[in-house]
């Protein structure tokens, strides 16, 4: 009997511990997704198709979520300024097409062209964030907004003239969506693509992500990487031990911006379209909430958080509409997505940050 009591207690403690370490909202979201997967076959949705959708969307978005990691590590908080990196990616994409590259090669060229933009914009952005330590997240948000609205004008004014991209009638000004058919549509997903009935795996895209994830993991274990983490967890101590805090932060911002640029290109190759103008406006928010759902906090993030988070977030995005529609004939997925993702960000912002500031 006595033993029984202690065992019960230990189980309860273990659950408590799990809730504490994992966070209640995260558990709710994971439980909700699990419920969706159980319900899906019952309400008549095809599970393999659903899984394929989730994996596809995972492969599109994962790198943009990965872009959150460096800045979180260096103590710059969540990168709400992701649209700036996305802009670099869009410049790469449109210039690659404008210069006449086609097929899979246009993807490589887009990445190459996007890189200098990302490095320059990232440096300026990083320099700015170094001047306003402590207020990064709000300013990052508005840097993102300003750059997107600035580029809205540029997309109209820049002298693009590829007939596949400009408005047909006016002959100038880029279209809001540009099809990638004939360019790098599915460029990565097609590599080693696996199909088992209704179940498909975009192997190439997943491998591409794995490459970056491994690179990030390896980087964080180099001397520079550990120094970056040190800056984030205790800037005073880092400074005392001879690390150039501002340089580390700048590096993390540039990395994040560049990853965002690559991330949007990967997203486009999966989605099949380039979306310009206001489309990048709120793209930071899904990436931010994804990494938070995965278990990251404002000042702690790992590669595992990225993978788990992207899977959970995209799982909810793909599963809710189908299950909801089949169950209650009400498409409440949009509302569910907003409440879950914004709720998650709110939760993370209200947690006390350990160490550091």
């Amino acid at each position, binding site marked *: 009997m006595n033993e029984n009591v202690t065992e019960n207690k230990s189980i309860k403690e273990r659950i408590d511990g799990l809730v504490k370490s994992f966070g209640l909202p995260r558990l709710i979201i994971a439980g909700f997704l699990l419920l969706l997967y159980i319900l899906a076959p019952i309400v008549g949705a095809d599970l393999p198709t659903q899984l394929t959708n989730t994996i596809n969307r995972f492969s599109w978005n994962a790198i943009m979520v990965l872009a959150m990691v460096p800045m979180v590590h260096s103590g710059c908080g969540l990168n*709400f300024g992701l649209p700036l990196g996305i802009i670099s990616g869009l410049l790469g994409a449109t210039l690659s097409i404008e210069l006449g590259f086609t097929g899979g090669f246009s993807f490589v060229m887009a990445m190459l062209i996007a890189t200098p933009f990302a490095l320059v914009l990232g440096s300026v952005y990083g320099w*700015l964030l170094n*001047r*306003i*330590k*402590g*207020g990064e*997240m*709000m*300013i990052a*948000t*508005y*840097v993102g*907004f*300003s750059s997107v*609205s*600035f580029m*809205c*004008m540029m997309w*109209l*004014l820049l002298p693009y003239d590829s007939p596949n991209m400009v408005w047909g009638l006016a002959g100038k*000004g880029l279209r809001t969506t540009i099809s990638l058919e004939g360019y790098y549509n599915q460029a990565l997903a097609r590599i080693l693509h696996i199909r088992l009935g209704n179940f498909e795996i975009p192997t190439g895209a997943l491998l591409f992500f794995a490459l970056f994830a491994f690179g990030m993991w390896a980087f964080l274990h180099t001397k520079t990487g550990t120094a970056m983490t040190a800056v984030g967890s205790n*800037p*005073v101590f880092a400074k005392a031990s001879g690390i150039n805090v501002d340089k580390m932060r700048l590096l993390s911002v540039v990395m994040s911006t560049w990853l965002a640029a690559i991330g949007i290109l990967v997203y486009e190759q999966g989605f099949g379209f380039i979306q310009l103008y206001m489309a990048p406006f709120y793209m930071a*928010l899904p990436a931010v909430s994804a990494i938070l759902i995965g278990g990251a906090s404002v000042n702690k993030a790992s590669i595992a958080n990225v993978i788990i988070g992207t899977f959970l977030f995209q799982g909810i995005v793909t599963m809710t509409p189908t299950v909801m529609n089949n169950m209650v004939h*009400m498409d*409440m997925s*949009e*509302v569910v997505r*907003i*409440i879950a993702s*914004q*709720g998650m*960000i*709110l939760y993370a*912002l*209200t947690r006390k940050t350990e160490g550091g*500031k």
Partner: protein
Amino acid sequence: MSVNKQKTAVNAAELIRNNSVPIMFIIICAVCIPLAGFSPSYLFNEIITRIGRNTFLILSLLIPVMAGMGLNFGMTLGAMAGEIGLILVCDWQIVGIPAMILAVIISLPIAVGLGLFCGRILNMARGREMITSYIMSFFINGIYQLVVLYMMGSIIPIKHSNIKLPRGYGIRNTVSLLRMRQKLDKLIPLKLFGADIPVMTFIIIAILCFFIIWFRKTKLGQDMRAVGQDMEVAKDSGINVERTRIISIVISTILADIGMVIYLQNMGNIATYSSHSQIGMFCIAALLVGGASVDRASIGNVFLGVTLFHMMFIVAPAAGARITGDSMIGEYFRVFVSYAVITIALVMYETKKRRARSRVGEQLKLEQGTGEEAA
């Protein structure tokens, strides 16, 4: 002597730096107005309309700034409450001024509830109030959609088919407020230089201004300023910091609620799912254009801001179309300027704060002879 001279030079530089945003805007307006080519009477009319429409909403931002909580992006919450009130009133076929009053009264408990919730959350996110209140506006927008798009008509009774979606529940994209339209503005009719002056709206705005001036002098107002200056000191002197901060947000939310009703009676229809989404952003931009900063905002800033910002908003599209031959450029330009202004104002505030902090740090260093505190 020379010290004095230096001081005045520094002061002048400081003055320009502190007012760089309004100065920039005056220049933008000065360039755009002749390019746009509107007649003075048209401009005057438009500006008066917009001042009447927006000022109340912008004034709702002042009290949280006073309490040191920064720019309250959560004012959107109050706007949503006001919209819910108006939708219900519209379905009950209440019209005119009584409809506005009734809409405010029904939405009051919603606004208070949302304000309390928002205040609580912001207390948990100290030092990050702005980004948190910003995300809060998105979160509550999700709840708002849940209520308006799914619960109205199914759980909350909605009778009239002109505001209900054909599917039987949810509210249409636009709800017409035709029989409430400009009823407040035109309650006391007055025409000046060919423009309709919304006398009653101005009177209400004036009352709110006096309320804010009076409020600053009350015990609560003093407490709020103390909390805004230094939370620790305020706490030591026996002020309930958390409660004071929550109250400031609740007041702001209620004012935004009333402001939204005034705003929409002028517009004459509700864009159910988008009227509120940009309101916080534009109000904050207008306040900053008036020379306010994150920790300091006055009634004067509000009026200067609303005038300059909306002047830019009126003339930019026309001027942009004139220069580039594309009307969209001007549209994007004014959006860009709104965001850029907020960005610049935030950056200036943070750098100033940092400079002040490092000055304090240096002082400490001098006093204590150690560098330990200079973090």
